[in-house]
């Protein structure tokens, strides 16, 4: 566990670059990663930025919310929704999205891309 965390955490941005209760897109190691700061729940989530439905780099511009207790993201294009914690598609049969661990330390946000 310890070795894993040393090798894979990437500095993504500072907390003030993020948007409360919304998403931003980051370019990390040539990948597009969507980072969500769910302030209402005091939770951070990172996922792939591509919506699998029409394969558009767009999820960071979607609306976050909850389904029951599950945090979710809705794609702005066709409102396909995905669980932020597991990546599972919550509306229909789309592919699940990749999710990445996030940690916040000293005002910096770190994302672990290889998990």
């Amino acid at each position, binding site marked *: 566990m310890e070795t894993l965390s040393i090798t894979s955490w990437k500095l*993504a*941005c500072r907390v003030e*670059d*993020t*948007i*409360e*209760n*919304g998403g*931003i*897109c*980051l*370019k*990390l190691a040539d990948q*597009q990663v969507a980072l969500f700061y*769910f302030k*209402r*729940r005091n939770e951070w989530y990172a996922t792939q930025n591509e919506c*699998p*439905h*029409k*394969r*558009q*780099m*767009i999820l960071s*511009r*979607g*609306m*976050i*919310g*909850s*389904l*029951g*207790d599950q*945090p*979710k993201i*809705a794609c*702005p*294009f066709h*409102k396909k*929704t995905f669980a932020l914690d597991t990546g599972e*598609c919550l509306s*229909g*049969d*789309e*592919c*699940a999205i990749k999710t990445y661990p996030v940690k916040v330390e000293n005002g910096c946000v770190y994302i672990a891309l290889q998990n």
Partner: protein
Amino acid sequence: MNAKKVVIIGNGMVGHRFCEKLSKKQPNFELVVFGEEPIPAYDRVHLTDYLGKKTLDDLFLAKNKWYEENNIELHLHDPILQINTAEKCVISQNGIQTPYDYLVFATGSAPFAPVIPGLDKEGVFLYRTIEDLDRIKAYAATARKGAVIGGGLLGLEAAKALVDLGIQETAVVEFAPRLMPRQIDDMASSILQNKLQALGLTCFLQKSTTQILGDQQITGLAFADDTQLESDILIISAGIKPRDELAKAAGLTLGPRGGILVDEHMRTSDPAIFAIGECALYNDMIYGLVAPGYEMASVAATTISGEQQRFTGFDMSTKLKLMGVDVASFGDPFITEPHARTILLEDKNKGIYKRLNISPDGTRLLGGILVGEAASYNMLLQTVTNNMPLPEHPETLLLGEQSESKPAGAGLEALPDTALICSCEGITKAQICDAVTQQGCEHADDVKKCTKAGSGCGGCVPMVKDLVAYTLKKQGKYIRNTICEHFNFSRQELFDLIKIHELRTYDSVLDDLGTGHGCEVCKPLVSSLLASLWNEMILSKGNDVAQDSNDRFLANIQRGGTYSVVPRIPGGEITPEKLIVIGEVAQKYGLYTKITGGQRIDLFGAYLNDLPLIWEELIAAGFESGHAYGKALRTVKSCVGSTWCRFGLHDSVSFAIQIEERYRGIRSPHKLKSAVSGCIRECAEAQSKDFGIIATEKGWNLYVCGNGGSKPQHAQLLASDIDSATCLRYLDRFLMFYIHTADPLTRTATWLNKMEGGIEYLRNVVVEDSLDMAATWEKEMDALVAAYQCEWKVAVSDPEIRKRFVHFVNAPAEKDETVKFEVMRGQKKAADWNAPVTP
């Protein structure tokens, strides 16, 4: 721990369903399927359609790579030949040896062919597989007369297939004294027979075929009563026999007349082996329909995954359309005195027969038969299965469609939530109603996608449609049309509450009035209410993340993730200087330009981080936001009117500009479109708008609640010959009334259609001020108009808002390199959608 291995023998409908069910279960299982046919599972129920408009592709049950994607090993054209139950291992025809933890027989059935001399002649076919159909199709091309042995459900289907293939004279030969002996009685059979005869299908009953005539090829049939029938093609469909030969060889216990004996968990005499579908014998019965087969698949999958589910027999009710003739049988169709009383309707004139079997005390329905007219089948079946009380005069149920005087849906209302509507998929009334109320389904098709209801045999589709209509109607009537799981209020209630509590951000509304953490339904709705109430810049106070896609970035998102930009061009009037600026901006930022339907110019293909730059230039030239992205006033279209036109009565352009500038930016339940025409020739098409104005000799005529779009509707006259000031006053009231009371995403036309009292009522409210609200609404509108500011002007000058217009937060100058364009007619267009990642 290694996943347990489940081997499935047979890839028919039930075998496929089993794979679907088990692959969703935990823990994971390793699934291996062996199928005898060369193609993967297809819809055998609709096999006859294959001869009609459907292709093989339409009939396949799973998408192309479904098995692969679900990690299921599928061996087609490779039946299992041998089973070693001691070592738990199967061997296939191709020599594949596979061990198993569980083995599932889904071998189905084969057509039963009575022993008749001559069965081997050319032109004699069975009716079971796609291959059978292909052979029949090929042979039928040369045949003139056809026959089917077997007058049951399948036999009649096969006869229909022959008729569809263009065979002029087709006969059905049945051994029993009636058609469909397991489903209908003699009187029903005789009505059905007459109907089929009229359609070119002759039925011979009580005929025992003794020989198939002809040398190499069939030429006819000979019967025990010494009669003969000429025929060039023959289909045998005299029933089914379970495919149990492999099970027998493996030493499993069979029933006395065949079928693999199973218990209520579908387990055979060997606890590691299961049998489902038409090869399984449960409680002395082979279930020859797909719905019970699906139920068995579900029971076996559940049992294997270690949970509890029992098969307790299954309702064999059925409804089908035979060459356009409805035939249905439900509950116990044959029960008689003293256990039941029957009510009969026989209409030889119209070819209708109906039989209801009711309990001796007259309170419950036990079963029945419908021929010729079966619209009430689903409701009658529900009445039986849910043991619902009968009306005082149960004979009225026989009249079916004539009893329209009853309030529609009265029967649906009485149906319990638990009533099983789609028995193939096990979907209840409550689930269907939920799909409508919670998930916004408005058509049976949406419900089908959402719940799978109606995707099996399709028999329940009419009832699903009724339920959708009933549920929607109910919503429209008693609007407790709550918004979503986060707000237990209707839009109108929430509007008033936000106003009373003076809430100004989405978060405060959710904290004070809702639960949970919001969603893509309530966020834009609340944002719209906040904007309608306070008209504050929609991206301020952290409300940006609660705005819908387009409002969030004040532009319309397009394929690829770029945006289109629509500057306001009030009334469609624009100076050459401004036109040049639009052209220059489009050139500079590489935008595709198109004239819109509302007399404006749309600039497509703008990158997110170019939007503020584009708008800075547009604003500098005197443009402002056109709100094409918002549920707000779009455009007020106009004709040139009296300024140029020789027919024009008044200055329609000036009035259009005045109206557009008054209501610009105001958020409403849906978009608003308007137009002003300078005379009755109506060049601005005002009567197709949410509000439209047409000049008359004496003033203006005001029309409201028109609509183009998918359901065009003409606007209705609200007031005539009014002056400009009165017109604006009426519009203030009309718009505020709409903003206050309409359901989310409801255009004015739909809003009026749902309004009790219709246009008369609306006129009373707006013109006569029957609600005494006119002064309040006019004041509210004045406040909104006074609070207007161009959103884009605010956005480009507020650094906090402006910094959100980037794609990569950590590389703000970079553009999304995945955006692709193509060239068409000298301009760019968005590349087509990428192929989806399939699950």
